[in-house]
C-alpha cells in the first residue's frame, strides 16, 4: 500500500502546475493502471483460492463412484408359477413369443412407459450366420415385444471387441434395431464411469458402460450359447463382460471370479439364452459353419445362473465344468437349483400343431 502510494505523491503535489493538464492526465492514467492491476491481482488471488489444493494429488486418479449398474428385477410371480422356461424349435421369433408367454407374458417384465435396455452380444464384426453374436431375429422379436408391452424406448448396446460400428452393422443387429424402431447406443468414452463393486475383488475402480443405463428402467440380456476355452462357456453371465471398459482382459486371470462379480454388477429383468444353434467349438469367435450345431433350444428366466446352468448342457458339458456358477450362486446372483424355479418345457411344433 505504502509503496504504491509513494510514487503518486509527487504527482499529486505538483498537480496545480503551470500547464495543469499533463499532471491530470498522469493521474488519470495512474489510477487506471492501479485499477487494472488491482483487478488482475484480485482475480489471480481468487483463482488461486478457487483452485487451492492443500493435499496434493492422490496416487491414483479417478473417483470411486458407482457400486453397481442397478437392480432391474420385476416383481416375482406368484408361487408355483414358472420362473424358467425352455422352448424347443427353430424359429426364434415364435420361440421368443412362446417362452415369454410361459413366464406370464411380456407385461410381467415390461410395463407401459418403461425404457428398456437390451444387452446383446455384438462382440465381433461377424455375420449373423456364424453365431458369434446375438441373432438379429431374436433382437427384433424382443424389441417388438417390448414395444407391444408399452415400452417408451428401447435401446440396444454392447461394448464389443472389434470396432463397434462394424460389429453392429456386420452382425445385422443395427439393421434389426433400425427396422423395429430401437436405437443402437455405441460405446464412447463419455459413457464409461468407474465402478467399485461392494465386496468385489476384481471390479474395483473399473470403467463400466454406466452411461447406457441413464433413464433405463428394465434390462433384458440376449445371449448366444458359445464355447469358450477359458470360461468353459459363454452364455448369459459371460455376456455381461460387454459392460466393462478398459483393458478388461486382465480379468481372464481369474475368469470365474470375474464372471461371478459380473452377476452382481447388474440384476437383469430377463435373460434369454439363444441355443437355436450353439457354437460347439472354436468359441467365442467361431468363424466357420462347422463350429455350429443345431441345438434348437431357447431358455428364458430372470435368473442368469439358472439359465446358464441349463444352457451348458447344449454344449455337452455339465454345470461342474463352469466353476463360476457355484461362485455366482454363493454370491447370491441366482440359483443352480433349477427345479426350485418351477421350470416348464415347451415345444414350438406342439404348440403350433
Amino acid at each position, binding site marked *: 500500500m505504502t509503496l504504491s502510494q509513494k510514487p503518486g505523491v509527487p504527482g499529486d503535489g505538483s498537480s496545480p502546475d503551470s500547464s495543469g493538464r499533463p499532471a491530470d492526465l498522469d493521474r488519470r492514467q495512474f489510477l487506471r493502471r492501479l485499477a487494472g492491476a488491482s483487478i488482475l491481482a484480485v482475480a489471480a488471488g481468487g483463482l488461486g483460492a478457487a483452485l487451492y489444493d492443500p493435499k496434493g494429488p492422490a496416487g491414483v486418479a479417478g473417483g470411486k463412484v458407482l457400486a453397481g449398474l442397478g437392480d432391474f428385477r420385476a416383481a416375482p410371480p406368484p408361487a408355483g408359477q414358472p420362473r424358467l422356461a425352455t422352448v424347443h424349435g427353430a424359429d426364434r421369433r415364435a420361440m421368443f413369443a412362446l417362452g415369454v408367454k410361459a413366464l406370464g407374458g411380456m407385461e410381467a417384465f415390461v410395463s407401459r412407459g418403461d425404457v428398456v435396455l437390451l444387452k446383446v452380444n455384438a462382440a465381433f464384426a*461377424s455375420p449373423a450366420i456364424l453365431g458369434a453374436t446375438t441373432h438379429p431375429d431374436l433382437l427384433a422379436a424382443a424389441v417388438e415385444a417390448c414395444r407391444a408391452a408399452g415400452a417408451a424406448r428401447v435401446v440396444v448396446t454392447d461394448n464389443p471387441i472389434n470396432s463397434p*460400428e462394424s460389429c453392429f452393422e456386420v452382425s445385422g443387429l443395427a439393421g434389426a434395431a433400425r427396422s423395429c424402431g430401437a436405437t443402437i447406443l455405441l460405446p464412447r468414452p463419455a459413457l464409461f464411469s468407474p465402478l467399485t463393486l461392494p465386496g468385489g475383488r476384481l471390479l474395483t475402480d473399473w470403467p463400466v458402460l454406466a452411461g447406457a443405463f441413464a433413464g433405463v428402467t428394465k434390462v433384458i440380456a440376449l445371449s448366444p450359447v458359445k464355447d469358450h476355452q*477359458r470360461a468353459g462357456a459363454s452364455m448369459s453371465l459371460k455376456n455381461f463382460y460387454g459392460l466393462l471398459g478398459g483393458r478388461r482382459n486382465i480379468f481372464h486371470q*481369474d475368469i470365474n471370479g470375474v464372471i461371478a462379480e459380473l452377476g452382481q454388477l447388474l440384476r437383469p429383468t430377463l435373460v434369454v439364452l439363444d441355443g437355436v444353434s450353439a457354437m460347439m467349438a472354436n468359441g467365442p469367435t467361431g*468363424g466357420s459353419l462347422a463350429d455350429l450345431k443345431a441345438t434348437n433350444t431357447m431358455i428364458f428366466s430372470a435368473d442368469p445362473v439358472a439359465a446358464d446352468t441349463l444352457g451348458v448342457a447344449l454344449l455337452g458339458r455339465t454345470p461342474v465344468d463352469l*466353476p463360476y456358477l457355484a461362485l455366482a450362486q454363493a454370491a447370491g446372483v441366482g440359483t443352480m437349483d433349477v427345479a426350485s424355479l418351477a421350470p416348464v418345457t415347451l415345444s414350438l411344433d406342439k404348440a403350433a400343431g
Partner: protein
Amino acid sequence: MRIVVARRVSQGFFLLLFVWFCLVATVGGGFLQLRGWPINWLLSLDPLTALGTMLATHTLYAPLLWGLGVLALTFFIGRFFCGFACPLGTLNQMTGWLARLGRAAKDRAEDNHPGRAQAVKYALLAFFLGCAALGGLQTGLLDPLPLVFRSVNLALLPLADPGVGVVHDAPRHYEGVWWIGLMFLAILALNAVRPRFFCRFICPLGALFGLAARVAPWRIGKATDKTCGDCRLCESHCEGGCRPSGTLVVSECLLCCNCLDRCPSGRIGFAGRASAAGETALPDFSRRGAVTLLAAGAAGAMSAPLWRVEDAAGLGRSPSLIRPPGSLDEERFLARCIRCGQCLRVCPSNIIQPSVTTAGLIGLWTPILNYRLGRSGCQPNCIACGQVCPTAAIRPLTLQEKLGQGDHAAAGPLRLGTAFVDRTRCLPWAMGRPCIVCQEVCPVSPKAIFVREVFEPVRGGRLPLAGVRGSTLALARPLAVSGNAASGDYYVRLLGAPEANPVRLVGGGGAELALAAALPGAASGREVEVLIHLMQPHVDPARCVGCGMCEHECPVSGLRAIRVTSENESRSGPGRMLA
C-alpha cells in the same frame, strides 16, 4: 455472370465436395458414411498421380484416367484446375486474402511481383519424376491433393471426435500425425508471406500444369500493349504472380481471372493469341533453367537407388513393417502409394497408421498396421482399405479372396504376417497365471492359437496336512497363494504322487481346503501341493493370418506377450517361413 463469380462458385463447390468426401470416409451404410460415395474422385483428377504411377509402374490404373483428362484440358485453357478446383489452392487463396485484408493496393501489387523462386517448383517436379522413374514414388509428399486429404483426414477431423464425436464415437489416433498437421499449418501460414505461397513456389502439380499451360491456345492476356494506364490494379489481386500488366509469365497464370475482373478499361481478356504486351514462361529452357531441371531430375533418379542401398524395402526391412490386407509386395507398393491417407482414415479398427520410421525414409507416411493402437486387429470381414485406395497400392480385394473362400480356396486366406508368443512375457508361460485371451479372440476357424494344459506347483503351495474330513483338508499351516484359490484354476495333489490326477479346489484359504472330490491317499501328516492349472498358448503358423487380434487384446499392455511380425505375409510371395 462475371467470371470471378463463376470461379468462386466452382471453388466453393470443390471445397464442399472435398469436405464431404472427408466426412463420409468412414465405414458404414449411414448417410454420413461411405455407402458408395465416390470419395476418391478428387484424388483421381490429379495428373501428377497419374504421371508418377505411370513412370513407376508403366501402367495407368483405370480411375487415374481422370487425371489425364484434366491434363488434356490444361493443354487447351491453362491452369484452370489451380484456379477453379484445387481444394488446397482454395484454402491458400482464402488464407492469403484474409492475411491481406485492408492492405494497400500498391503493397499487394508488390507481393504479386513474379520472382525467380517461382521456378523452384519445377525443380521439385523434376526431382519427384526422377524418383518415380526409378520406382520410388514420392510425389504424394507435396502433391496438393494427397497432401490436403492426408492433413484434413488425419490431423484435422480427429480433433473434432473426442468427446464430441462428430465423425467417430471414439477418438482416432495416428502415430506421428503431429508432423502432418504442422506441415499443413505451415503451408497455410506461408500465405501471409506471399499469396498462394505453396502454389507459387512449391506445388509440383502446379509446375506440371505450368508446363502444360505453355501450349494453351486460349489464354488470358492484354488486348494491346499500348494505351494501358499501368495502374497495376490487375496485379494487386493476381493470385499467380504472373505480371498481367506487363510481360505475362504465362506458365504462372492460374486462371484466378482477378486481372480480367479488376482492369478498369477492360484490356485484359481471353483470346486465341498471346498477350499483346509480351509473354514469357518459367522455367526458361534456353539457359540455366534447363540445367537446373536436369540436375533436379538426376538427383531424384539418384535418390531411388540410394534407398535401395539402404534396403529398407528388402532384406533389411523392419519385421514390424506390416501392410494392410491386399497390399502389393513392398517394391510395387512403393511404386504406387501416394500417402493420401484414405486407407488410414477408413479403417474401422484405426490400426492403419502412417509410417514414420518403420518403412524407411522411402516409405514416410505410407500405411502400416500397428496392432497396439486402434480398436482391434484387422477385422476378418472388412476389406475397406483396398476399396478406397486410389492407386491400388492396396488392391481392391473381395471378401472371398481375403478369407480364402470360394474361388480362392486353393490360395488360402490372405496373410498379413505371423504371431509369435513371447514366452518370457506371456502370463501362463512366464508368470504362472491363466489368461489365453489371445486364443479366445483369434478369429480363424479352427483357431491358429491352441493351448497345452499343464499343472504347475504354485509358490509356497506345499502344505502339511493336519487332518482330512471327506473332501475337506485341514492344514497344518495356512495357504497363502496370490490368486483366488476358489477360482477353479487351483488343484491339489498328494506330494510325491506325480501320476495322480489333481483334484480341483472349490474353496479354501485359511487353514482349510475344500476339494471338488476326496483326495485319494490323503491323511494327516502327509503333504499336498497346490497346483495351478494353466493353458499355455501356441501359435500354429500354418493357420495364423497375422490379423493381430491376439496382439491387440493381450493384457500385457506394454510390449505385448504375443506379437505379429511380417513373416509369412502373402504379399511377399516366395518369402514364406514354413516349408
